């Protein structure tokens, strides 16, 4: 009986998770993944490029900066709209 109740409780929890709106579930992914990816490019540029004095890795720095800056430009108004909607 306890096991059945537990299962029911957990299934409700799971249903609750998936019934969340997809855009709200995706918000942390949209915000943080580009930052992590751009940091990966920066790491490659700094570790293999700047520390070794190899300017070939400047490209990674450019791509990392573009991904980070470009995403911030569109993510900030997105987050503002998100919090405004949540207040409503």
């Amino acid at each position, binding site marked *: 009986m306890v096991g059945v109740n537990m299962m029911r409780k957990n299934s409700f929890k799971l249903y609750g998770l998936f019934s969340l709106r*997809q855009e709200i579930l995706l918000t942390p992914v949209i915000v943080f993944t580009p930052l992590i990816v751009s940091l990966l490019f920066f790491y490659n540029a700094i570790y293999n490029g700047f520390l070794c004095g190899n300017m*070939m890795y400047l490209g990674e720095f450019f791509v990392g900066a573009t*991904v980070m800056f470009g995403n911030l430009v569109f993510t900030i108004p997105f987050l503002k*709209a*998100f919090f405004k909607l949540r207040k409503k």
Partner: protein
Amino acid sequence: MIPEEKTFAHWYRRAIHAFSAIFLVYYIFPDVYWITVTKKCVVVLTVAVFAVFEVMRIRKLIKNHKIFGLREYEENRFGSYLYFGIGAAILLLFFPQQIAIPSILGAAFVDPAIGELRSKTGKMTAYTVGFTLSLFFFSFTWLTAPFPFSFIAPVIGAFGAVVGEIKKFRWVDDDLLIQLIPAVLLGILYLLTGLLGVAFLPSEIIHPLPPWLV
């Protein structure tokens, strides 16, 4: 839909667009051992899964077939995100990174920038800014290309990207064209110069991580 929700949906689309620049992480994985096969499989499988999902959505085979952020005209055709995915997959799998990187960056950032500016400053300014931004992405990537391609290729690429954005078709989204038009134009030039034995491509700008690190 309340106004706040409309604004949120608008910026959600823009943020998803910019988010897609992360596809460039593909180049950071080294082309060794199982990684080559895995990364290619991930690209193909991701597009295939979303294509199946879109077919099911259009045929209303899934319960909640309304996706937040999709436009009204996308109700009965593939969503623009799938077109973006198909375009990016073609670029990643079949084009050299020197052509694919600025094309994907252009689709990720130039398209939403033009979309924003078009309603605020008018078409002419929006397309001029779009061209300049695209030119910047191509110029940086083609900086080390042999002369005169370091000048010609960015202009062709930026021109193709803006044409891809301007031209509207009912069944083909601009997210696909903005990537493929510059890539195909430069791809043709690449093949022609290859036939003539002329060096065309610049050096790669994304270098893979060392295999021991992955």
